[in-house]
Every structure is written in structure tokens, then in C-alpha cells.
């Protein structure tokens, strides 16, 4: 990381932690789930949105986080279950035999 980048991060961190109505990236992390579930009170949601506007890292992180959920649902969701073609006949017999 260059000296300029380090300085910029330091300034950003100081601003986010000291200015009223702003949150740091670490604090932002704690709100992600509540934000996506629509459970944040209006004022907290506003602070979260404000952080998103000014923080490239959290904006891109959140986009990738949401895409991860979508991709997971697409790969594992209904209609994509890998149904085994070879259910062992022994298992079927065992199930049928377990009927009393």
C-alpha cells in the first residue's frame, strides 16, 4: 500500500469514527444482516445508506455479498437438486421392510 493510500485510509477512518451520524466499516458489518432483512430502524438504515454512498469498499463488498446469496440460491435452490440416479435397491427394500 502506498503512503498516499495509507494516509487516505487513516483520514477516512478518523472521519467515519468521529463525525456524528457516521459509522466505520467495522460497525457497518454489524448492520448488514439487519439491513438486508429490512429490520433496521429508519435512522440506522439512513446511516447505513450514507456509509454506502461514501465507502467504495463497503459498496462493492455488499454487492458481492448479495450476489453470493443469489448464486447460492440458484445453484442449490429448487429444481437444481442433484437427485441420485442410483438409489440402491437394498435401501428401497430396507425401507419397505421397515413397514410394520
Amino acid at each position, binding site marked *: 500500500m502506498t503512503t498516499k493510500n495509507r494516509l487516505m485510509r487513516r483520514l477516512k477512518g478518523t472521519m467515519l469514527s468521529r463525525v456524528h451520524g457516521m459509522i466505520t466499516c467495522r*460497525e457497518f*458489518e454489524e448492520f448488514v*444482516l439487519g439491513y438486508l432483512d429490512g429490520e433496521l430502524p429508519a435512522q440506522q438504515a439512513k446511516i447505513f445508506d450514507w456509509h454506502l454512498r461514501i465507502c467504495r469498499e463497503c459498496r462493492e463488498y455488499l454487492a458481492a455479498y448479495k450476489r453470493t*446469496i*443469489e*448464486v447460492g440460491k*440458484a445453484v*442449490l435452490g429448487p429444481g437444481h437438486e442433484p437427485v441420485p440416479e442410483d438409489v440402491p435397491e437394498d*435401501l428401497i427394500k430396507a*425401507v419397505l421392510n421397515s413397514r410394520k
Partner: protein
Amino acid sequence: MPDPQREKPVDSGIAIDSEELVRANIGWMLALAERLLRDRGLAEDVVQESFVKAYEGSAGFEGRSSLESWLHRITVNTALSKLRQLKRLAEQPIDENLPEFDRFDCRIELPWSRLASVEEVMESDDTRRRVYETIGELPDSYRVVLWLRDIEEYDTSEVATLLGISKSNVKVRLHRARAALKKLLEPVLRAEELQ
């Protein structure tokens, strides 16, 4: 003498213990159990136990849900009991894949020049398989919560009850599971190999 309770047709006129019903459902139940347990032998045990529970509880099936969703729920519950029995649901370390912050509490996140679309990921057998396998790499205690909430779409309270943990613990595990999965899937999501 036949037991009239067990002979009662429960759905579409098919008796719960008919061979037809077993053959029609055993494949997806096995896949479901294997997905949860990541072990074919244990999954077979769970399927057998699930059918036994279905036979025993068939009088409790009131047709409010489809027969398939009833069997689905029995299979999930039985698989979770198995995981609990094997003590595989205790919290395990996942920290190395969680988001990182510098000493100023700023997020460390490399710039994303491109984020793959769901369609791009789904287009290739290879990327689909990698997503599937990567989810399987998550520790059980996180993977199961992610799977129940995001894939099965149980709500937080239901997951808490199923796993015997608090609602806030479900939320923490879900968020960590998603965050860790995001990190593990970065090579796919950054679309480096899709271009």
C-alpha cells in the same frame, strides 16, 4: 388384520407405506439428506429413519401441506438430529474467511472491476460445481444455517428451534456463513475465469 389408520390414503389416493410412494420419493430424499450430511452412508440411514417416522406419524398428516413437503420436513429434521447426535453442529472456527479491517476500522477489500452475474455462473457446469463444493467446505454449524435460511427459506425462529440455538446466534452464524462464502467464491464472482 390391516390397520385402517395406516391404510388410509394420505395424498392422491396413495397409501403412505405403498412401494409406489417410496420409489417416487426416495431419490430426492436421499439427495436432500446427503446434501445436509455430506455422507452417503449417513444419508441412507436418515432416509430409512425418515420413512419409519412417516409410517409412524402418518395419522398426523392432515393434508394441510403436500405429502412431499411433509416428507421433506421429516427428512430435514431427521438429518439435523443426526448432525446433533454426531456433535457436528457445535460452533467451529471460520474467522480466516471473515472480512478484514485495518487499524482505522476501514474495510480491506480489493477493487471489484467486474462482478459475475448469476446467469454467467449458472451457464457453466464447472462454476456451478465449484459453488456447490465451496458451500460444502463451510463448517457444518455455519453451512446448515446458511442452507436452512437461504435455500430452504426457513425463518430465523424456525432455524433457532430446529438447531436448539438462540435467534441471535442464528443471525450471527448466517452472516458469517455468507461473508465467508463470499470470500471463498471470489475467484468465481470476480469473473476472472468467465471472461
